[in-house]
């Protein structure tokens, strides 16, 4: 992408798709997840990561799905600095979008969407409505090619903006009513393995039952400018130390933090 194309596209659409920037780290994460899954399902055959990820549903009972997800989550996040490895997958682009002093979500989430599984549906929402900073970006990285219902959907910037601004109209109907009325406007995002999606938490998005015959595994986490506002209504949940951790602090900031300038005498 040309210089500034990333910025322009993000401002226009609220999301961008681009190639993984640190292939070595991507492959390292992929391998680790592959080995965790193999062990969990007791899979002895030789196969590629691509095959196993797309076909987990053939070897895993639906009832054990959440346990597998949690096992992957715990094992990868047991490395306290895993968020740094994850950040490296899209570091340059994130810096272009949010700045070079960055706060990162302290844990990376995992989703597994097996075909026809209704229990993992995440219905239409915007993260910024749920106490997360509207200034963050969400880094979403699939480990398989994703398309149609195997992927997630987004509603465009204008629709999301108008809907959020007039949310009170639907106070007693709920989000379902908005979704059902406008579901034809949603767009499933196609992302290839080896690419990432960065999107604004202000876009309405979600997923539906995966009607393809392949499983999707994806990771997601959030990054924001260290100094953009955090959720102004949440005192604990989505702030530094609870949800975010400083990823980069520049020397001027580090130096300044030693000084307490009095407000009044």
């Amino acid at each position: 992408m040309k210089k500034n194309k990333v910025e322009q596209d993000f401002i226009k659409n609220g999301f961008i798709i681009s190639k993984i920037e640190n292939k070595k780290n991507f492959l390292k994460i992929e391998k680790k997840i592959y080995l965790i899954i193999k062990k969990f399902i007791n899979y002895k055959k030789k196969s590629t990561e691509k095959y196993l990820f797309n076909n987990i549903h053939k070897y895993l009972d639906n009832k054990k799905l959440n346990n597998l997800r949690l096992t992957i989550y715990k094992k990868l996040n047991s490395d306290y600095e895993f968020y740094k490895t994850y950040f490296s997958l899209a570091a340059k682009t994130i810096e272009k979008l949010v700045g070079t002093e960055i706060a990162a979500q302290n844990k990376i989430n995992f989703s597994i969407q097996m075909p026809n599984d209704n229990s993992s549906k995440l219905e239409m929402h915007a993260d910024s409505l749920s106490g997360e900073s509207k200034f963050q970006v969400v880094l979403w990285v699939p480990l398989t090619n994703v398309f149609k219902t195997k992927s997630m959907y987004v509603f465009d910037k204008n629709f999301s903006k108008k809907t959020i601004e007039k949310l009170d109209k639907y106070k007693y109907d709920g989000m379902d009513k908005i979704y059902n009325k406008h579901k034809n406007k949603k767009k499933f995002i196609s992302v290839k393995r080896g690419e990432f999606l960065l999107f604004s938490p202000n876009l309405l998005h979600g997923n539906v039952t995966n009607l393809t015959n392949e499983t999707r595994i994806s990771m997601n986490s959030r990054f924001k400018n260290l100094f953009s506002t955090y959720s102004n209504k949440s005192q604990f949940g989505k702030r530094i130390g609870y949800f975010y951790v400083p990823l980069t602090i520049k020397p001027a900031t580090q130096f300044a933090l030693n000084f307490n300038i009095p407000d009044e005498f």
Partner: protein
Amino acid sequence: MNSSKKIAQGYLFLKPFNRVYLPTNIQNIIIKNYCEQNDLLLKLSVNEHNIKNCWMELFSLLKKKDTDIIVMMSIYMLPDNKKDFIKFCKSLKKNEKHFVFVFENLKIKNINELKNKMNKFKLFKELNKFI
């Protein structure tokens, strides 16, 4: 999947309830634990919007045909003003759902039971201001 299990959905609240604030990941763990202990099939929990006097996600949950029980931390997460509570009761009447309030250790099976408990716990809340 064991079809005899009842389907529960967790409801997470980002705002303080009765002067308690609990991060949503902790609410999730408690709900998951409750469902495991009570042999309920838990669907992904939903976060209520972080907007004052907003129960949009709760109103959505009431209408869900594939959910039997709504599990949340506290009865104090329900609409606490008259207008919204009446709307909530009307919707609940149309869409029968059971409720579990973990902190108060309450299982509610119908609207009258809910109204009774709501009155009782409103009184407790008032009393707690003075003691």
